[in-house]
């Protein structure tokens, strides 16, 4: 598929390389005929460790200087807790990657239809068509797209990811690990979070874990008033213990 170029490594597929317990842990599980894949991030559980950001870079061969996933610190500063109205301190992190919007502004403005939405609602970039005009980067309200400003460089120099790097001069972003889906594996960030803060599932399945979590915990979206319809939900923290 032109959105991602799978790198052929030793194992016939990534799934076979994993030990069975890991594989079961990362399994998507039974799915409907037409899922609408979304994600929820539990802000109570996120500890700002950046593991998901690092493994995303590794999995997708994201070059040096770029990142598809970044962990924002709520408040004014990177390492400073917030002070609430009672003088209590708290600290939260907001992991941010492509929100895979239902009404994606990036898709509307792409002049060559390189950015498109697949049948499961995931917004992808067809690298054969991207001319690098960066209109999508101007149009994204979340700022989650990055551009290949030069030839991709990696450390180590051989790629570590399951997909090839994208060409110089093209735009890239989170693909919701579309290359893992056929192996029945959740995205790498969901799989790797040490606090199990991410939930991946079908937004159209009212009995599935994702919708259940959003309903019971109360989820919100980023920049809801902009009308983009993001598929990433953020679950509000319940406990508020002074630091």
């Amino acid at each position, binding site marked *: 598929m032109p959105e991602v170029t799978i790198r052929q490594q030793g194992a016939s597929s990534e799934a076979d390389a994993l030990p069975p317990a890991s594989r079961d842990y990362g399994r998507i599980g039974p799915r409907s005929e037409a899922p609408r894949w979304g994600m929820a991030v539990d802000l109570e559980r996120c500890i700002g460790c950046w593991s998901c950001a690092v493994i995303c870079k590794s999995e997708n061969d994201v*070059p*040096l*200087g*770029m*990142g598809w996933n*970044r962990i*924002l*610190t*709520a*408040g*004014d*500063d*990177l390492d400073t807790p917030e002070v609430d109205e009672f003088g209590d301190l708290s600290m939260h992190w*907001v992991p*941010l990657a492509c929100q895979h919007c239902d009404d994606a*502004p990036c898709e*509307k*403005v*792409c*002049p*060559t*239809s390189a950015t498109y939405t697949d049948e499961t609602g995931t917004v992808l970039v067809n690298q054969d*068509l*991207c*001319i*690098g*005009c*960066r*209109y999508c*980067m*101007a*149009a*994204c*309200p*979340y*700022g989650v*797209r*990055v*551009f*290949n*400003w*030069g*030839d991709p*460089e990696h450390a180590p120099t051989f790629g570590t990811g399951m997909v090839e790097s994208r*060409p*110089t*001069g*093209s*735009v890239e972003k989170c693909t919701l690990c579309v290359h893992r889906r056929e192996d029945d594996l959740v995205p790498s960030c969901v799989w790797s979070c040490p606090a199990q803060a991410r939930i991946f599932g079908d937004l159209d399945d009212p009995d599935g874990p994702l919708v259940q979590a959003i309903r019971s915990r109360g989820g919100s979206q*980023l*920049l809801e008033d*902009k*009308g*983009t319809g993001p598929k990433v939900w953020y679950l509000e923290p319940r406990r508020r213990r002074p630091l």
Partner: protein
Amino acid sequence: MTTTLIPGAVAVPERPSSTAWRVWVAALGVGLSVGLVSFLYQWSNGLGVTGLSNTVTWGMYIVSFMFLVGASAGGLIVVAGSELVGTERFAALSRLAVVVSVAAVATAAGTILPDLGRPQLAWRMITQPHLTSPLVWDMAVLLTYLVIGGVDLYLLSRPAVPGRAMRRMAQITLPLAVLVHSVTAWIFGLMVARPFWNTPLLAPLFITSALVSGTALVIVVALVVRRTTPVAFDDRTLGALAKLMLWFIAADAFLLSAEVLTTLLSGSPDHQTQLRVILTGRLAPLFWSEVVLGVVVPFVVLANARWRTRPVVLGTVSVLAVVGVFFKRINILLSSMFEPLVDLAPGLPGGRPGQPFDVAEVYLPTWVEWGVLLGMVAFFCTLVTLGVHHVVIPGHRSDSADEGPGGAYDRADGPDRAAFGHPREDG
């Protein structure tokens, strides 16, 4: 040296030496070479050699594109408008205005290519256009505009320009020129991500800025052409155009004030953050220079009827107006780029290996961008020179030939010598 009293007709000023011509051609050659070398360097090394980043992802190339489309549309709107209204006041300038307009829009189309990450795939916009994208609309309108402009130039270069054809052309070019710059405005104005641009006023604001910059550019080029070629425009024509520019500056200032006032008093927080960048923030020096030098000074000077007919004053004020509109384009673009909607720490990854995350964005164009822009300026000047040589001068010569004996070219001292010391081609 003879000057006739027929308004706008050809006078015969001093001829330039052919040394000046050679220097001009050499300068154009240097400019074009610098532009080409810079572009090729950028193409082989990637856009990372510019000062752009993941946050400030559009910069001087897009500013120049905005400015050039505006300058192109502005001049043509004035010419076509005056043709439709039926006034003869600017008829002498119409050839030059169309030349400047077509040159500007061709340069604008060229300025987009260096901004693409993969210009070798630009043809995909034609084979696989995405019809919801304002960039596709703009490309279609720009190409149409170029073709119509070419037809216009051809008609104007003929010895006898049929009046009805010119009227028909004006009926097409006027709405097309307004459309071209409105669609360019809609590239920016239809995005929820950029509240500062997301205003219905953006297209009207672009049009008024286009009228100011287009008119000013035509005046500057006319003054230069007057000094360096046998073509002349009398002070009254230029003064009339200057008076028109006065009203355009007023209209532009009005729309800008309406925009600033509404946002200041009742805009959304995101919108106000982006506005503060130009009022009191990083772009404040540029913004207030634009207001003083590009709006207040030209308005005060042009309001004085004596001052605006003096070539030096008019030329200076027109250059100031052009620079002011260019600064405005920079302010409009960068204020929104500097303040993304989600601006929590640590910001966006820099984009280049070793470049850290950065919340406080800085944009400093590199030599590559200046080189390409120099090439674009040289390209524009080359097109204008060609247009003057092949459309304006022959056109004016045939205009004055129609005057009969006693006209400007009927001289007793031998065969006429064409501009720049070259022998006359049509004998």
